[in-house]
């Protein structure tokens, strides 16, 4: 009898591992297909180009991953990104130093995330609604502050953040992604905050009855997401050398897609930063591939929408199977 338990356990674990590797596998398959279709795909230049393109999405996906693990959702990431970009560039054109301006941008994101968190935990507003509201508010504020006109005339030194290259090869944003991902992974896997994030997403009542201060940790989770949107906003503004109030419109789709492809489950409690990075890479490769193959931006949206549905479908299918077996 003991052996049979171990066998089914082993089977389940094998299935879980396969599931984990599934997205990595699909990334490799995509890469193989694309390098066959376009000779340019597998060049160092293009790979770092993908890195640059996905950097902003990847940074936001780290925070979104934590939010989704806690069984929540953050729809405001794209708007908060724009607002952060706008506030930091506004400081820059008004003569504030780079460091302070960047700080203002990051703090803007932090504040938005904090408000999301407070609304959700203390205000008991469902995450979907709270962040949907914030999505409108942040976007609106970005447009109000700028009067709808992009902010130009940023100092050249600012462009290093988004456009600079280390050793003339590695784009600086990619370095930032790696650092932030490592920090995010450390938080999720090795700190109390991370453990409680999983606990809240897994069973919020069990966490509460185990003495976890749910409200505090939920606020922290959304605030953390906001910080990352702030970073992403500043980097994007630097890369574009403008403060775009309309930047990141619709990007919540890409960010959530990255998380879902990377193994997050909307019922909460599952996922990790590595998955989010993988998901972001898949999104990046997909967009890059579409560009290389001259597939229009419109079709890209159709693809990405389909991929989200497909990823969740696979996830649900797997859960259903596990539930029966």
């Amino acid at each position, binding site marked *: *009898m003991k052996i*049979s*338990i*171990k066998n*089914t*356990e082993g089977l*389940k674990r094998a299935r879980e591992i396969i599931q984990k590797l599934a997205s990595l596998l699909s990334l490799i398959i995509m890469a193989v297909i694309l390098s066959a279709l376009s000779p340019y795909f597998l060049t160092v230049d293009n790979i770092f180009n993908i890195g640059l393109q996905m950097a902003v999405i990847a940074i936001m996906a780290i925070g979104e991953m934590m939010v989704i693990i806690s069984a929540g959702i953050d729809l405001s990431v794209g708007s908060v990104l724009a607002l952060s970009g706008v506030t930091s560039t506004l400081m820059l054109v008004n003569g504030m130093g780079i460091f302070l301006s960047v700080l203002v941008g990051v703090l803007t994101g932090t504040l938005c995330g904090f408000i999301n968190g407070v609304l959700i935990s203390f205000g008991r507003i469902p995450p979907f609604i709270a962040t949907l509201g914030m999505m409108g508010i942040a976007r609106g504020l970005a447009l109000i502050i700028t009067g709808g006109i992009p902010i130009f005339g940023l100092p050249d030194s600012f462009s290093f953040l988004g456009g600079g290259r280390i050793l003339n090869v590695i784009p600086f944003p990619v370095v930032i992604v790696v650092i932030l991902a490592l920090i995010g992974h450390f938080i999720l896997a*090795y*700190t*109390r*905050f*991370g*453990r*409680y994030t*999983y*606990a809240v997403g*897994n*069973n919020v*009542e*069990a*966490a*509460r*009855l*185990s*003495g*976890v*201060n749910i409200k505090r940790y939920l606020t922290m989770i959304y605030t953390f997401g906001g910080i990352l949107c702030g970073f992403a906003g500043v980097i994007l503004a630097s890369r574009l050398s403008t403060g775009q109030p309309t930047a990141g419109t619709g990007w919540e789709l890409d960010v959530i897609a990255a998380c879902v492809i990377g193994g997050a489950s909307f019922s909460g*409690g*599952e996922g990790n930063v590595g998955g989010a990075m993988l998901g972001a890479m898949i999104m990046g490769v997909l967009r890059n591939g579409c560009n290389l193959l001259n597939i229009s931006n419109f079709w890209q949206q159709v693809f990405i929408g389909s991929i989200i549905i497909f990823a969740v479908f696979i996830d649900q299918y797997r859960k259903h199977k596990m539930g029966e077996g």
Partner: protein
Amino acid sequence: MNETILKMERICKRFPGVNALEDVSLEVKRGEVHVLLGENGAGKSTLMKILTGAYSKDSGKVYFKGKEISIRNPRETLDIGISMVYQELNLASSLTVAENIFLGNEPLRNKFIGVINRSEIKERCEKILVELHISLAPQKKLQELGVAQLQMVSIAKAFSSKAEIMILDEPTASLQEEEIDELFSLINKLKKSGVSFIYISHRMEEIPLIGDRITVLRDGKKVETVDSNTPVEVLIRMMVGRELKELFPKETVDISEEVLRVKNLNRKNSLFNINFSLRRGEILGLAGLVGAGRTELARAIFGAEPVDSKEIYIDGKYVEINSPTDAISSGIAYLSENRKLFSLALSMSIFSNITMPSLKEFCIGPVLRLRKEREVSKKFMGKLFIRATSVKQKVKFLSGGNQQKVVLAKWLCSKAKIFIFDEPTIGIDVGTKTEIYKLINLLAKEGAGIVMISSYLPELLAISDSIIVLNKGRIKKEFKREEATQENILYYATV
């Protein structure tokens, strides 16, 4: 009355690691109330889930009205006339009584467009209600009804869909005396019109009142089918399969100074003027019917439920407890009655569940000491005989008994000195139950104070040093161990 309507033959069902059912047969006659008796985990609900198509069977045959049927999904069983009466699950609370009774089966004016014939619904509903002597207005919305009335609606719904077998699972669990009488007269009325019932209940006292025959299950096997006039002691012996003494080990422990005092605890409409004290080494049983306020009281002490007033003294000192966090840091542990809903993060590992309440002890600043977590958890796994492949195994893959042990480990690990156990042995097999009693004894011996809530009186009587009886939110009586009997506890719980 003698015609056999349902026959389940040699049904087997295996789950990973357990034989849930082994060669179980059941025969139900037309117009009888067939009681299915057995402890939690004996296989009653698995058998019923197989009958209704929620689970598939591994082997065995099911005959309905003499013909073998293969049950593939719940819809099919419903169509042939076997109906599980849920208390509220399959009712839509914002719809009316009439709409619910015909939900999924509406009389239509026009089949193609699907326009519902409202007047016909109302008429037919009235007819059914009159026929069954149920005094309910068809246009009343379900959210305005009580539990007992919802059950009536469920039964009427099953009746309207021409169910010939109705399965009732603990139908009286949350009913008052007079509601139970009403339910029984409804069952008797339906019996006369040829409906058969499979009746699951833990309340031994009501079985001779309503049942015709009884089938006893134990550990996934059928023990026997007997008449309903079989004495209760005989039934219990069949259910448990051994003498009660070895089942409920009790050690004598020196009861010393007071560890917890609850004073003047009040909560609007549910708890009134609760005062009691608990001493080190003492096991205090909390008895009462479902809805008497036992769980509310436990949660109120633990800070999980708001109260209007309460004073809590630990080791003689007043402590402010406004949240579970406060309670845990004052040394109180609460094991809730529903481990899946309230106690465990199922897709997390064993060790992260065990360390959850005391995670601060496993941290340097904000950073976890994973190795220490695993080592300590491993120790508890050994101490409590938790059967799992490793401390990293996800809790959802463990059996109910092992899951409950993880919950125990989690609170042992928190180094609490006051333990509130809320139905600690629910849904657990007999052997594990005994292990849990031993553990509770051990805790008492080590000087902890224990409050134990249980609806299972034999267990409560055997393990408690004293017993408090709650009735409608008030403490009705306090018994010493020697004074308490099943009868006088029930008396104070119901009067």
